[in-house]
């Protein structure tokens, strides 16, 4: 399936999905990069820098798909919007905080994202299926890495465990938003762009995660989330990050790199 044959409502829903996914990866990549130089050990400096590079690369490919679909410039999409224009999940409105918090957020995000990518692997929209096939191979390494850290903190004594549990309890309601807030997801499922609606993907994610959370004695999800999932209201922490990642471009928007 190419862009030409998409009916207008499906195309609109696809645009929303691509923007949400691109913004998720983009904003998480910038939060990750905040650890560069100050991670707990040198190996994690390298790892988080690589994770950040992967996520920003994925965002770049997704912004390119959006530009191919709707016109426009991928860099303008990435850096040219006001903070209210971003559609990332509320999970990514939090600052990096401490190491356990960053590990908990990444683990919840990566596992949710894995469920989302699984639902796009056989997408009828070929350009997206191609990018997702590539992303899945890279995200397998992210999952492996974050799972190892969750296990290490959960079984690493009183303080690491307490910090991890507190972070997960704080983040769970917002983590549910990663697989929510997409308008027209049922239409996308009917058109074969997405394997199933977001609610079903969310159920699949939580069912996959439950045994591991039980094994490690970690908190599970609340019954429901609260509030809007993907803006337009944004935290002061995200506004600060936005100031950082748009700073160079705002200093000279016409510069040619």
């Amino acid at each position, binding site marked *: 399936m190419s862009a030409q044959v998409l009916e207008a409502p499906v195309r609109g829903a696809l645009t929303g999905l691509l923007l949400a996914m691109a913004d998720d990866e983009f904003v998480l990549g910038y939060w990750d990069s905040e650890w560069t130089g100050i991670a707990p050990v040198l*190996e994690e400096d390298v790892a988080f820098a690589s994770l950040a590079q992967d996520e920003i690369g994925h965002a770049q490919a997704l912004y390119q798909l959006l530009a191919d679909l709707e016109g426009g410039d991928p860099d303008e999409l990435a850096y040219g919007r006001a903070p209210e224009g971003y559609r990332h999940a509320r999970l990514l409105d939090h600052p990096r905080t401490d190491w356990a918090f960053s590990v908990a957020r990444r683990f919840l995000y990566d596992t949710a994202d894995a469920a989302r990518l699984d639902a796009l692997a056989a997408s009828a929209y070929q350009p997206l299926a191609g990018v997702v*096939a590539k992303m899945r191979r890279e995200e397998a390494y992210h999952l492996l890495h974050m799972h190892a850290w969750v296990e290490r903190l959960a079984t690493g004594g009183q303080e690491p465990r307490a910090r991890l549990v507190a972070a997960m309890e704080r983040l769970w309601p917002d983590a549910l938003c990663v697989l929510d807030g997409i308008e027209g997801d049922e239409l996308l499922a009917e058109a074969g762009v997405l394997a199933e609606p977001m609610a079903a993907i969310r159920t699949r994610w939580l069912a996959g995660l439950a045994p591991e959370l039980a094994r490690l004695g970690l908190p599970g999800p609340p019954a429901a989330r609260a509030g809007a999932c993907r803006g337009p209201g944004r935290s002061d922490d995200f506004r600060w990050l936005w100031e950082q990642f748009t700073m160079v471009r705002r200093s000279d928007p016409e510069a040619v790199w």
Partner: protein
Amino acid sequence: MSGSTRALTREAVWEALAEVPDPEIPVVSVVDLGLVHTVELDGQRLRVELLPTFVGCPALELIRGSVAERLAGMAPVVEVEMTFAVPWTSDRITGEGRRKLRESGFAPPGPAADGAGRPLFTTIGTRPTASCPWCGSADTTLENLFGPTLCRTVFWCNRCRQPFEQFKAI
């Protein structure tokens, strides 16, 4: 005017491509790494499609540019593009490429997991393994899944007691 003009062949294009090194691991060429997806030769037009190793690899534009530079002039119109038409996987690295990697101290990747076949979630318990490219020992420890570039993982050899890198199985 002396000298005869011979028609450009696909073989000549592949030979030229084999001279373009990977910018991050220059012992291997873009052909050794299996980055070349298609070579189309159509009269006046030569078109080459390349596969990105990693979506966010900062060397992609450098690789595309090096290939375009090497092929420039071989046909009146030369086009070099990146494509996600099929995913590049480390299984595409040729036998020759693996030999060159090993000889320069990189463990070649093991077989890549079949990304499409099973839910991503189920990959969570797997761990990459590698044999030491220096002494051949399989007694090695994974030090860091992430290394100096996106495509490299760091190991430690317990036998010859040296660190080494593996090209990621992906």
